């Protein structure tokens, strides 16, 4: 237990709290508006553009960036990398919160959120990719919950129950990786149904593979990015082991991210070759595709490699941020920019400010809950009574 625990009386009016407070209030107002006036009142969605920022950002990007969970637990438990052990709990927490927010955001976008369990209980549309995604996300949410819950129980002191769950860790990890592979790739496969609407440079039958590989890169980068932020703001919560292992985590994940991004770059180029879309690279959309491919895949892969060789932690951390931004760009490209690219610009979609505000609200809720948990539960440090292997 780090000794500099809670300082004196905490003043609530820190600038951070004020800003998040304001966002949350606006968010609540918008939520009321959304659920009373319907989707039309709050969004720019039309019959041509059925999916907007909430699907493009909250879901696609949210799920991709929550991949840190399965990547870290796979590395530590399945591949026996004990040195990264301290990184597991924060990653699992980020993953769990990410998926919780995804489901929370889904309830905003879907017309009748109270019917979300219908695909499982009422009627199963097994030919649909969405059925597969819904199933895996639901299961994986429970898996993440079970992986996260030991930390909560240590805080609550429920020893026996915690003992029971800890024994499941290996099974949960394997299940977590399997489920993640499924739904990360299926999120990409969702867009396979509309070859006539997605720009040929972004549409490819490899979409599921692209989404899965980029989710690994996203997971790795997210862990690095999140650990660098946590070290900035929650250093006092971290025990000595955590601080020591952080450098190894950053380097190890940085190297892995560089390789995975390189692999991702190669199969993206092969995707273009497969569809013989070289000519399209000359068009404005081709230019934007190159910006995404070179600027947000090749460049970070290079910067990671340089960072790892020179053991330059700041470069790796900045590159992690840049890769996370790259994932956002890629997912928004596929769902908003390159989708319906043929429609005249008058019928194209641009998010309504209320949509953007709601998404910011959802992310802020995530951050607040993250801070709540981190400052209470043994995430960054090991609970004294549970020194044993947990």
């Amino acid at each position, binding site marked *: 237990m780090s000794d500099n625990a809670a300082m004196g009386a905490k003043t609530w009016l820190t600038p951070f709290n004020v800003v998040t407070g304001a966002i949350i209030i606006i968010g609540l107002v918008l939520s009321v508006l959304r659920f009373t006036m*319907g989707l039309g009142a709050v969004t720019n969605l039309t019959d041509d553009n*059925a999916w907007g920022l909430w699907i493009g950002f909250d879901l696609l990007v949210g799920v991709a960036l929550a991949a840190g969970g399965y990547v870290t637990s796979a590395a530590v438990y399945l*591949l026996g990398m004990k*040195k990264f052990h301290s990184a597991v709990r924060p990653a699992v927490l980020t993953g769990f919160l990410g998926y919780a927010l995804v489901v929370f955001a889904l309830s905003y976008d879907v*017309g009748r959120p109270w019917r979300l369990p219908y695909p499982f209980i009422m009627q199963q549309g097994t*030919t649909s*990719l*969405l059925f597969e995604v819904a199933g895996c996300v639901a299961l994986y949410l429970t898996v993440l919950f079970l992986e996260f819950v030991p930390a909560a129980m240590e805080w609550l002191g429920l020893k026996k129950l915690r003992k029971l769950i800890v024994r499941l860790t290996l099974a949960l990890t394997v299940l977590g990786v399997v489920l993640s592979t499924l739904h990360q790739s299926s999120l990409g496969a969702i867009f396979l149904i509309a070859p006539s609407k997605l720009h040929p440079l972004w549409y490819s039958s490899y979409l599921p593979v692209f989404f899965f590989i980029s989710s690994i890169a996203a997971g790795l980068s997210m862990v690095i990015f999140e650990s660098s932020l946590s070290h900035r703001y929650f250093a006092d919560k971290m025990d000595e082991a955590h601080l020591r292992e952080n450098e190894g985590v950053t380097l190890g994940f940085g190297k892995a991210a560089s390789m995975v991004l390189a692999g991702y770059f190669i199969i993206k180029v092969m995707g273009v070759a497969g569809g013989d879309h070289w000519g399209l690279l000359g068009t404005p959309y081709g230019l934007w595709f190159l910006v995404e491919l070179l600027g947000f895949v090749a460049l970070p892969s290079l910067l990671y490699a340089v960072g790892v060789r020179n053991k330059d932690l700041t470069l790796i951390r900045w590159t992690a941020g840049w890769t996370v931004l790259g994932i956002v760009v890629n997912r928004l490209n596929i769902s908003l920019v390159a989708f319906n690219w043929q429609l005249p610009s008058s019928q194209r979609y641009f998010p309504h400010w209320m949509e953007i505000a709601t998404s910011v609200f959802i992310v802020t809720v995530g951050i607040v809950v993250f801070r709540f948990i981190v400052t209470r539960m043994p995430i960054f440090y090991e609970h004294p009574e549970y020194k044993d292997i947990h």
Partner: protein
Amino acid sequence: MSISRRKFLGWIGAAGVGSTLGKSAFAGGGKHFEGHPDSFGVLHDTTLCVGCRSCEAACAKENALPVPDKPFTDLSVLQEKRRTSPTAYTVVNKFDIPGRKTPVFVKKQCNHCLEPACASVCFVRAFEKTAQGPVIYDESVCVGCRYCMVACPFEIPTYEYDKALEPRVMKCTMCHPRVMRGEVPACVEACPKEALIFGKREDLINIARDRIRKYPERYVDHIYGENEMGGTSWLYLSAVPFHEIGMREDLGVTPAPELTSGALSAVPVVVGLWPVFLMGLFAISKRKEAVSREEMEARVQSVSALAEAKLAAAMETAQKEKTAAVAKEVQKALESAAQSRTKEEI
């Protein structure tokens, strides 16, 4: 331990690549489906349509759709291109083709595909291609995720965005109740020019071919909907190439379910093989650990054995010395004793 980091790197990369093998493994296999036999459809001859909008009026009346502000007899609406909307299952669009005396009018509504994309993507199976032909929507299960609107290549399903509690997806149902009663859809009945003919899909295709053969200059020799997206029940004849009247000719002939069946077929492979592979990884890393622990112990053993041996040797020498020293002492003592005795004697 650095090896394990490089190893980690390799495994993650391999894991990623390994899973790709299963991805586009095999599509629908050798199966081929012709669709429900004797299912109904509609043939729309765009050369006959004069844009009087009687079909729109009949459709609104039959489906009890709200009456629009501009009456159906007001043809000024045709000036700009319209798409289907929650209050209009069908719209007629006017296309002025350069080089043609009269404009071409085309009725747009759900094409009732043989392999509907909307049905394929709905994860609660709200859409169903009935044996009779229409693709119908079941509002009682619809969750409102709107994936069907994303998937439809003809941009037909619409959504009631203005409703908060009971939003529905709205689209033409080919007057399924009427068809079940053995009647023709309302728009077909209302069309004065008989630009819409209702009948079995095979018959309609033959009728269309007869017309093309009888009036070669009047028609483009192509029945739109015969193969597009795997075939649709709503067929079109036109005097001008279809892309000039707002109908996409680049949709291909792959039925919608085929587009995603490849990806879906990879799921079981992943579920089947991935756990085995991962558990294997775990076992290997555990064994490696065990092995490294044994090596550790072995080394420890060998080191300690060495130390013991040295120790033992040292002990022996020490022992010997001690005995030797003792023996010397004893001898000295004897000698002194002997000397003292001799001193007493003297």
